[in-house]
């Protein structure tokens, strides 16, 4: 339990700092910028209480917002992601796997499953984030394109990071 607390605190801090200190400065083709920090919410154990997920989403979003001066934008999206995570996980995984393994990882599930899982959440997260950030329907397709292209980069980063840091 204490071990887990330490581990996930570390993931939280690394994810947020990597996002605000490094990845926020990345801008490819003048419109693609990845949001990698979502990985923290994706990696939490299956048995995390629902209220806890919502609360952690709130804290994660607020931390990123504070650094990027976008008060409320990341917070609103992350709270929603935390709230819908159990529902979507119930749909895409069986009860047995959820009870036998502790958390969603490539090592315990499969690569394809993990890519699918990441894609679902990154898509929801990026679409809402970019719309909320723009806060207008003007230039809707430009916003949409930014969200989709940035999403692809984020998914790649999240999946690759699994091979780098969470190999067994």
């Amino acid at each position: 339990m204490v071990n887990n607390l330490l581990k996930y605190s570390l993931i939280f801090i690394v994810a947020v700092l990597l996002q605000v200190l490094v990845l926020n400065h990345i801008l490819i083709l003048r419109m693609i910028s990845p949001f990698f920090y979502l990985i923290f919410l994706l990696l939490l154990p299956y048995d995390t209480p629902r209220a806890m997920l919502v609360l952690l989403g709130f804290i994660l979003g607020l931390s990123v917002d504070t650094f990027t001066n976008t008060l409320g934008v990341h917070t609103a999206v992350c709270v929603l992601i935390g709230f819908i995570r159990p529902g979507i996980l119930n749909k895409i995984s069986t009860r047995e796997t959820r009870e036998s393994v502790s958390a969603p990882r490539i090592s315990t599930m499969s690569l394809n499953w993990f890519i699918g899982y990441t894609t679902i959440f990154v898509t929801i997260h990026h679409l809402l984030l970019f719309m909320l950030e723009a806060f207008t329907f003007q230039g809707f397709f430009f916003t949409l394109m930014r969200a989709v292209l940035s999403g692809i980069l984020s998914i790649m980063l999240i999946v690759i990071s699994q091979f780098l840091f969470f190999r067994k």
Partner: protein
Amino acid sequence: MRNLFRLILRYHHVFLFLILEIFSLSLVVSYNNYQNAKFLTSSNGISGYFFENFAGVFQVFDLKKANTELAEENAQLRTALQHYQLRSSNNSIQSYQSQRNPLISMTRDSLNKIVYFFTTARVINNSVNQRHNFLTLNKGRIQGVKPDMGVVSAGRVVGLVTNVGENYSTVISILNERWKLSAKIKRNDFFGSLSWNGKDYRKVQLNEIPYHVPVQNGDTVVTTGFSSSFPEGLEIGIVSEYSLGSGSNFYKIDVNLAVDFRSIVQVALVENRQLKEINKLESLNNDGK
């Protein structure tokens, strides 16, 4: 009553979700209405600490360019200073009004009192990848930074101070859809409003220039003295493209920014010592309506 408690207990995560979601959405909405949020910005101590300590790592690559720019600016200022000293020895008022360098000529008013003061600060965080970009500077209230001070880099407009913490401050950049700045074409003094459409970080848009004004590619766009945060005549950029929409009375003008926002290291803060007086005067006008 007991049933109500049971309901709340059973669906406590839903209630928590609703409360937090409404709270954060209301932050987004109020943030969009009022130019800037009053709390939890990057001018606070914690994010300032991280930015201050890690900014150096990435800025090393930009240092060479920053050095050259500073050296160039120094040289310009030295030349301007010499002109100034030569002419002020003649002791005529026209002498400094005809100065070409706005940094020196516009810092004084007709009563020969210094109006604009400059101090320097280091950029510790900066972004160009959002629709609403901000910079964080390593100086705050203790070092004398105040809201509404203008921020320039090598004599070119960068942004405006919005939030000031103890040791850090946040600057709203030109690359922020929520900030508009009045600007004019240097050649013929016609002014319009400058804003960013959120697309290309190297280009901003100048609007409200009427169609009868002669505009050319390569025209320099500079500040007007209207905002009282910037002296008149500071360079913003150069006209790169202009078009007249069908049936429109105003040009759409793209301006190439003079500042490269991806490599800003050192900036100067402009303080208008008469800002208080100007604001007081203008608020009198508004009351009279």
